[in-house]
């Protein structure tokens, strides 16, 4: 049996039933990482010995649970990976930056702690654009990740390491983060499934802050069922994150049973998302995917999100403004390396100037400018007002439809280096994903085809706040009827 082909849910089930052991599964994942990660560079840190120890321990607990007729943790013995902007106790957390080189957090993020409490084994940390700022993982200070479908192309970003690791069958699932599309766009580029939950649904405690009014912890896996399983574990109120909601977490897996029937579900297709510049193969594949939803009984109609064209400039003022404040803490005093200069202020500026990468400095500069005296009203305050109009577009649309279906990104994976010299061209990759962050609504990315170069194409489903159960049900119905998510790259 090829253990690395198992989905997360399959692996968890087979572990519980004693059909496979955590040691064989974890060893198979580590071996695949060992074999292919020199080429893919999905990982920044690994803990093979500790993971194997935990696997042996999990096997003992699984045996005990079976003997006593008890249900073990839902993920007991399953290996996972975590994006390197999320803290795992005892593992380095660099955020893809030299300014955090050598930093080892002494605590787990709440999402990580909940996965571990459910029995999951963290095998390592995955590559990311520096501080999650980027759409290609090329902004990592530790070198880019390569797309498993074509090593000359980017995996998307910023959770490119997580997406590539899942697509390359190195782990069945991984945590990612999504501030403007950083779970969904790499999921699309790598042909895997990714969910960005509603703002407030999942704790960000232990997630290194980038844009605090936008950041979400999310999950990447190979099936909708797997993302539902993960979301059910990481979601919910956390006293350590005052932005988490008190609302109870539904049983997401419960909504993925029975016939994949979508009668009574109204799906809107926003006309503003099919714009000039979108790759024709992407447009065709997404329209075909919407037809599949219609075949399952969904009622499809056109909707309008008239302020869509403003989402990109709004995001690229608000996110850098928040980033410029959040990243003020990196000054070489409490963690990370220091570049010593004659006095304190020069030491700060030397440390930050030398150890932040080009894109991070660009966004700090942009954000500082947008917040500075004389420009605050025209840029930052105006962006926050237009953000309200973007939210209201979605509120109006969700008065007419239950879900919105659209492309994840305007293109398939581009070549390494293709967009690095033009920041604006790179930012345009996020044009269909960042509205969901601005509005705080959930988004699910699903594989829905390939282009003529055999690069994956993704469809995105969006819903109103806290509509994850319906989003997952529609995505699950789609995957029950199609086979795109089962395709695997040849490494």
């Amino acid at each position: 049996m090829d253990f690395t082909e198992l989905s997360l849910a399959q692996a968890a089930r087979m572990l519980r039933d004693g059909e496979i052991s955590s040691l064989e599964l974890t060893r198979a994942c580590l071996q695949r990482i060992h074999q292919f990660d020199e080429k893919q560079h999905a990982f920044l840190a690994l803990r093979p010995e500790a993971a194997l120890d935990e696997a042996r321990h999990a096997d003992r607990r699984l045996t005990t649970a079976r003997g006593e007729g008890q249900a073990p943790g839902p993920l007991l013995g399953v290996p996972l990976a975590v994006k390197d902007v999320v803290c795992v106790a005892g593992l380095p957390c660099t955020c893809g930056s030299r300014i955090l080189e050598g930093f080892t957090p002494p605590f787990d993020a709440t999402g990580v702690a909940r996965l571990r409490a459910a029995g999951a084994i963290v095998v390592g940390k995955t590559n990311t654009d520096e501080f999650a700022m980027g759409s290609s993982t090329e902004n990592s200070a530790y070198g880019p990740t390569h797309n498993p479908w074509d090593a000359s192309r980017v995996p998307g970003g910023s959770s490119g390491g997580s997406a590539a690791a899942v697509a390359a069958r190195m782990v069945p699932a991984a945590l990612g983060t999504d501030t403007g599309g950083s779970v969904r766009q790499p999921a699309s580029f790598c042909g895997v499934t990714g969910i960005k939950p509603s703002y407030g649904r999942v704790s960000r405690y232990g997630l290194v802050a980038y844009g605090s009014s936008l950041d979400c912890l999310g999950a990447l896996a190979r099936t909708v069922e797997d993302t539902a399983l993960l979301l059910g574990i990481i979601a919910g109120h956390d006293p350590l994150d005052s932005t988490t909601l008190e609302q109870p977490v539904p049983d997401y897996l419960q909504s993925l049973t029975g016939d994949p029937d979508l009668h009574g579900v109204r799906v809107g297709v926003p006309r503003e998302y099919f714009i000039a510049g979108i790759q024709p193969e992407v447009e065709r594949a997404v329209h075909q995917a919407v037809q599949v939803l219609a075949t399952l009984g969904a009622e499809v109609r056109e909707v309008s999100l008239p302020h869509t064209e403003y989402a990109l400039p709004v995001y690229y003022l608000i996110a850098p403004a928040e980033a410029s404040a959040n990243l003020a803490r990196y000054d070489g005093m409490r963690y990370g390396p220091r570049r010593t200069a004659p006095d304190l202020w020069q030491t700060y500026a030397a440390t930050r100037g030398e150890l932040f990468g080009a894109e991070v400095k660009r966004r700090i500069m942009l954000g500082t400018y947008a917040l500075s005296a004389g420009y605050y009203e025209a840029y930052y305050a105006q962006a926050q007002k237009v953000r309200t109009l973007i939210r209201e577009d979605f509120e109006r649309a969700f008065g007419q439809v239950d879900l919105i279906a659209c492309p994840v990104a305007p293109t398939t994976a581009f070549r390494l280096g293709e967009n690095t010299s033009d920041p604006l061209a790179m930012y345009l990759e996020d044009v269909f994903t960042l509205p969901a962050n601005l509005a705080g609504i959930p988004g699910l990315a699903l594989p829905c085809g390939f282009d003529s170069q055999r690069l994956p194409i993704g469809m995105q489903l969006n819903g109103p706040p806290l509509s994850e159960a319906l989003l997952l049900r529609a995505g699950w119905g789609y995957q029950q009827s199609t086979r795109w998510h089962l395709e695997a790259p040849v490494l």
Partner: protein
Amino acid sequence: MALTREEVEHIAHLALLNLTADEAARYREQLEAVLEYAARLQAVDTSSIHPTTSVLAPLSVTRADEPRASLAPEEVLRQAPDRARGMFRVPPVFD
């Protein structure tokens, strides 16, 4: 949206970022391009629109003011590039 070299240097100073002359020149061009793109927001009438600072309803969250376990000081200090006598050691603030 024209940016002067002095403005770029001023922003870098506010952000506490040492930039090389090359970086300053490059950022001047790139920030100009992004700000020019962002200028389209000025065309939107927002005179009666409230800003969104968070998508969540405004809510002050408090917790009980009770002592509880925290990270050990030595564990926290272990991460610092320079430390002495249970404290972070930093370059002089004043001469």
